């Protein structure tokens, strides 16, 4: 039976030759992931079920990234609870303090997720790893508890939408603009329960950082997973990182899709998603002047070194508008260190930006840049729901690092082409 890349990976992990959309399977998982918000509940459920040992201490990954460096006593207690569990279970990949980074930037960077893997994580943006040609999907804490104890998880095989990105990319348009445009086109439930398979000549040329930004936001269209077939760019990325074997899967030419959508990228200009849904997408140039109070560049969507290179290129030699607070949050210690080496952090600081330790922090309204009532923020993050970054009457505008950087200088939402 012809299979999509997603079906191939699911079938392999379920010990089958092929699977069909709608079928329930109980595949093995290669990585079970949790963070400081979702792991405490998972650990409680794990113990309540009478489990005493994780199925494989090298396949459970716990990343304390959301409210760290711990923002208050409760958060510190949650992390302590997870830390004690990690010690007791001798979890190899427990990250806190100097080793911690935003999980979905950290795991690929360390080679913990590789092509062909099946990853489940108690974090909705677990779908990021699809950029490596892996199946990955977000679940809740009880699912994580089940996976930690049995090494398996029930899944319904999703049907797939194939997106084919064609045409020439306009200047300053990258993966973030493509995915915001796509979500704007299909809506926040446009791929509900489905696979978003991203393909086409434009995707084939995109660097890994842009691919991660795209698969990262599959969940914002309701998708179960986002996935890109591994190619030379993928292999170049994992070459120095892979410490174990991996499998490269491809979709069969005659694989079946619920829908095929072609997107002409030459029509896409830098995008912004307006409050309060990621699907509320517009081209920056269509907007009237929207004054802002804050800019955040970071997160599992756009906190990679390439993102900071773009932002620094735009900001270099300029000043952040005096009405704007600019927060630079490298997603991982390696990104931080590389940005330091390349002089990027100095560029941001000279311009009037603030550099923070790696954390999810403001993206989910945790800490490190919370908004007051009526304040507006341009963020390279992934959600702009009511109250997402603070007060329910504050507003988040989602955009690329290029648009975020230009907006920080201008003091209102602006494309990079508006700077001299």
């Amino acid at each position: 039976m012809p299979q999509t890349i997603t079906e191939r990976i699911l079938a392999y992990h379920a010990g089958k030759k092929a699977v069909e959309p709608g079928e329930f399977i109980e595949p093995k998982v290669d990585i079970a992931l949790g963070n400081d918000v979702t792991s405490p509940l998972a650990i409680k459920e794990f113990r309540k079920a009478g489990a005493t040992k994780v199925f494989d201490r090298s396949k459970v990954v716990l990343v304390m990234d959301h409210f760290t460096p711990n923002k208050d006593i409760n958060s510190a207690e949650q992390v302590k609870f997870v830390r004690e569990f990690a010690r007791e279970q001798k979890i190899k990949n427990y990250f806190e303090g100097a080793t911690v980074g935003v999980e979905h930037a950290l795991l690929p960077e360390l080679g913990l997720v590789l092509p062909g893997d099946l990853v489940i994580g108690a974090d909705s943006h677990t779908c990021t790893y699809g950029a490596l040609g892996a199946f990955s999907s977000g679940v809740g804490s009880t699912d994580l508890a089940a996976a930690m104890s049995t090494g398996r998880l029930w899944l319904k095989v999703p049907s797939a939408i194939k997106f084919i990105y064609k045409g020439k990319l306009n200047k300053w348009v990258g993966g973030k603009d493509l995915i915001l445009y796509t979500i704007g086109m299909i809506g926040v439930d446009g791929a509900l329960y489905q696979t978003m398979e991203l393909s086409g000549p434009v995707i084939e040329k995109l660097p890994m950082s842009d691919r991660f930004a795209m698969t990262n936001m599959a969940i914002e269209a309701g998708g179960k997973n986002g996935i890109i077939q591994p190619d030379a760019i993928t292999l170049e990325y994992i070459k120095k990182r892979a410490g174990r074997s991996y499998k490269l899967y491809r979709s069969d030419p005659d694989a079946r899709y619920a829908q095929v959508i072609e997107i002409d990228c030459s029509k896409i200009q830098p995008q912004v998603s307006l409050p309060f849904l990621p699907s509320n997408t517009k081209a920056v140039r269509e907007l009237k002047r929207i004054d802002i109070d804050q800019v955040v560049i970071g997160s599992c969507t756009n906190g990679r070194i390439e993102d900071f290179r773009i932002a620094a290129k735009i900001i270099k030699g300029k000043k952040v508008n005096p009405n704007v607070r600019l927060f630079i949050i490298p997603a991982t210690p390696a990104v931080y260190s590389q940005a330091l080496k390349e002089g990027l952090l100095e560029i941001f600081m000279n311009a009037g930006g603030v550099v923070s330790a790696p954390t999810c922090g403001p993206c989910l309204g945790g800490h490190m840049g919370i908004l007051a009532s009526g304040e507006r923020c341009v963020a390279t993050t992934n959600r702009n729901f009511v109250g997402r970054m603070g007060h329910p009457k504050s507003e988040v505008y989602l955009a690329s690092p290029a648009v975020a950087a230009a907006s920080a200088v201008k003091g209102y939402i602006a494309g990079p082409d508006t700077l001299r």
Partner: protein
Amino acid sequence: MSKNMILKGNAHKYGSNINTDEIIPARYLNTSDPAELAKHCMEDLDTEFIKKARAGDFIVAEDNFGCGSSREHAPVSIKAAGLSGVIARSYARIFFRNSINIGLPILECDEAVQKIKTGDALEVDLVTGEIRNLTRKEVYRAQPFPEFMQEIIKKGGLLEYIKSKPSKR
């Protein structure tokens, strides 16, 4: 969840794409204590909700209920607030899984969503999937769960279900 379970309560009607940030804002996620989470249920959507809602009441919403974050704290807060459950046209997939896994009754029913108004008295039979609107004297039928999930619900949650199965390892 016991057999022949009939749930009774009034409806609180909301729109589409009610996300988990609205159901339980992240500022309260520094605890996983159900009682604490219950106090802030639906807070960023409707600050009055927790004052209006009585034990046994239902949230009735349109499409894609529970979209956004994977936080299980969202269905936990609804359950701990004493609500009977949720009736919607569709659910975001992680919220759907989480609700089944923790034993929060959720039903999918287009007709119910179209006809139910805030304040309607409802009676829901989880076994048959029948939603009786006592105010309007109407009956709607929810989609039955796949057998696989009915088993999880019958066992009282995912981990109980796993415990009841012979080990595969």
